[in-house]
């Protein structure tokens, strides 16, 4: 009844270990090469200032697995990051939120300046390089374009970047606290504002978690339209990204053509749901705007036109010497490094990793209509551009198939407002950047006790820092655009 991308458990059914058992279990999964999708802390109900309860979500052989770790005051949790670098951001987040010290962690830098770090943006422990001709270049938090804020500091020798420090947190809006205390009926608009460019996967992940907690089965017709919305957003945002890359390398036909094709896609979303970003399209149990023959014809006609013109510009973009000269071998993250640091989503697939939850855990409409996996081995800016171009093609073909085979939507079920008490639902969705997670834990009264969100950007920012090493500083804008990460998704 619960989709495969959702894990629903009564809180006392979740296997709970002590810190040392939790750490051993996590280490054995990491040693086996399993994907650790998330590791986060929640306050203990009985002692909110005590050691946090830790939660790990792992992609096992048969699906999602969850286990918890409970500590007592004075318990140590030796860091796993030194052995498994991909754990660095999880441990840093838990440290920043709960003060757990993780002995042996290489560097517990702030993730987003929340809690006791709030407002201390001038206090960042930048990595230092020494040497007579070594210099630092600081950029941001306000950048030259219309873009979210974040600070980048480059340690350079001449034009070569030896190291990039990324300081985030400027966008911290207290999302998790707000999600936990907002009445459920008012949650969806907030969920859609966690990262406005990823509104659809966020609200779909929330809806599935909430529907699971309320015991309402998903309906194939609604799932199909959700999939359509997610893929339209993917195409639109890939067009933004590739158009931005084209602008950054001064390939003007790409800049203008990808830009106007994006307009065509988001205006289609607007005709379908009233919003160019898919806002308010979905609510738990509910498909708010009809998707009938008229809408189907509109989608088909629009996508066919986009596909025709996209093929022309992709061909020109792919053949342009000046584009390839800038993108190839720039900002490379080799496969092994991408795996070690836990990269996910589109950027990871461009480094040859096969992580894509639409493939690993196909649910809903992705079960009936498989989405081909797109990977590129090279891990450079060109690979990230090509993955995005190829994913657009796959999504277009997939959409044109899916709209010809739409299950009946049926009538909306009654409002869903009574979630199971003492339960946890963890829900994933593969958005255009990568996997988005929503984890909702209810208390004995069925109220939301804790709401955890994870954007793929949390794990991928360190990939960007690795990508620019030994590159020329003038290539940074291309590297940054090729990753296209979310600032507010990280900062929450």
């Amino acid at each position, binding site marked *: 009844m619960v989709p495969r991308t959702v894990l629903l458990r009564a809180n006392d059914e979740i296997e709970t270990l002590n810190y040392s058992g939790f750490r051993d279990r996590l280490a054995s999964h990491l040693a086996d090469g399993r994907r650790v999708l998330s590791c986060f802390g929640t306050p203990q109900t009985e002692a909110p200032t005590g050691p946090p309860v830790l939660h790990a979500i792992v992609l096992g052989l048969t699906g999602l697995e969850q286990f918890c770790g409970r500590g007592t005051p004075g318990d140590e949790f030796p860091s796993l990051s030194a052995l498994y670098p991909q754990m660095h951001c999880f441990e840093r987040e838990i440290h920043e939120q709960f003060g757990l010290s993780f002995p042996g962690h290489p560097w517990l830098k702030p993730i987003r*300046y*929340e809690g006791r770090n*709030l*407002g201390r*943006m001038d206090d960042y422990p930048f990595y230092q390089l020494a040497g007579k001709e070594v210099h630092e270049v600081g950029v941001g*938090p*306000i950048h*030259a*374009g*219309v*873009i*979210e*804020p974040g600070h980048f500091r480059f340690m350079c020798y001449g034009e070569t970047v030896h190291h990039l420090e990324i300081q985030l947190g*400027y*966008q*911290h*809006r*207290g999302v998790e*606290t*707000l999600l936990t205390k*907002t009445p459920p*009926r*008012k949650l*969806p*608009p*907030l969920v859609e*504002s966690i*990262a*406005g*460019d990823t*509104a659809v996967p966020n609200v779909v992940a929330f809806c599935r978690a909430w529907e699971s907690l309320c015991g309402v089965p998903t309906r194939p017709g609604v799932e199909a339209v959700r999939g359509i919305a997610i893929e339209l957003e993917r195409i639109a945002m890939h067009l*933004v990204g590739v158009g931005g890359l084209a602008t950054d390398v001064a390939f003007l*036909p790409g800049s*203008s*053509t990808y*830009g*106007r094709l994006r*307009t065509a896609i988001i*205006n289609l979303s*607007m*005709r*379908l*749901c*009233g*919003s*160019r*970003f898919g*806002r*308010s399209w979905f609510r738990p149990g509910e498909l*708010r705007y009809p998707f009938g023959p008229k809408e189907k014809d509109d989608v088909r006609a629009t996508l066919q036109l986009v596909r*025709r*013109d996209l093929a*022309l*510009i992709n*061909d*020109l973009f792919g*053949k342009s010497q000046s584009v390839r000269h800038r993108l190839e071998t720039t900002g490379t993250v080799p496969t092994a490094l991408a795996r070690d640091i836990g990269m996910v989503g589109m950027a990871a697939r461009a480094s040859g990793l096969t992580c894509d939850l639409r493939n690993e855990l196909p649910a809903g409409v992705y079960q009936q209509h498989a989405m081909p996996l797109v990977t590129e081995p090279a891990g450079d800016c060109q690979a990230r551009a090509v993955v995005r171009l190829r994913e657009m093609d796959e999504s277009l073909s997939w959409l044109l198939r899916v709209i010809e085979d739409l299950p009946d939507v049926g009538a909306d079920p009654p409002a869903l407002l009574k979630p199971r008490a003492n339960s946890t639902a963890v829900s994933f969705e593969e958005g255009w950047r990568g996997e988005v997670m929503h984890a909702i834990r209810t208390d004995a009264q069925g109220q939301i006790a804790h709401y955890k969100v994870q954007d793929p950007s949390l794990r991928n920012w360190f990939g960007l820092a690795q990508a620019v090493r030994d590159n020329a500083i003038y290539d940074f804008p291309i590297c940054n655009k090729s990753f296209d990460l*979310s*600032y*507010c998704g990280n900062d929450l």
Partner: protein
Amino acid sequence: MIPILEALQVRSSQGRQFVPDVRAANPVGFRGLPVIDMNPCADGCTACVDDCPTNAIRLTPFALDLGSCVFCDQCARVCPQQKVKFTGGYRMAARTRDGLVMKEGVATLSAVEASDRIRQMFGRSLKLRSVSAGGCNGCELEINATTNVNFDAGRYGIDIVASPRHADGLILSGPITVNMAAALELCYAGMPDPKFVIAVGSCAISGGVFEHSSVLDRSFLGRFTPELYVAGCPPHPLAIVNGLLDLIGHADGKW
């Protein structure tokens, strides 16, 4: 095919993309300006107020504050009297905060009055610096779109510039986080006089869905009152361009 012919083919597929008259465009399907019917509310009904995520609605007399509204359509859907109806209207800007309040029985917001001072100085050339202070990238994408091939604000002399030193106006998005407050202040201080602030989107105008967050610092707006507010979540590029043209006293939006 010869490369130049391929480039020409792309160019010809592009056609003419700009919106010829931004005053008379028709963004089909857009959920914009809500109009409020004169029907009385059902007795004692508070369905819309109970569900509104941003407390944008006041009853007796009924009023909807577009500076808080996130256009989620919930009030219209729960109202038994069909009192609120969202239309395709995109003229959703005002010179004052109160000017964004939509009242019963009116079809539009009051027209944005041009500022003589701003028209005189920036009427033919207005350079803006965008600062996102907690924006979710929705407003940022739409601000960016005002200068794209479709909305093309550049044809009216309106541009977004890279440095505060080149800017006449600061276009603010996001609810202003504690962590971004100092940088926003620095940016504004770095802009040469004369200068002014434009608030774009519900978050910048009222805090929006983040209004009750404890990690905001909105004191900047207490010190520097915006000359223009543009409503939306996010605002349509047409709302931004039209608001700006009104502010600088551009006679019409034709090109």
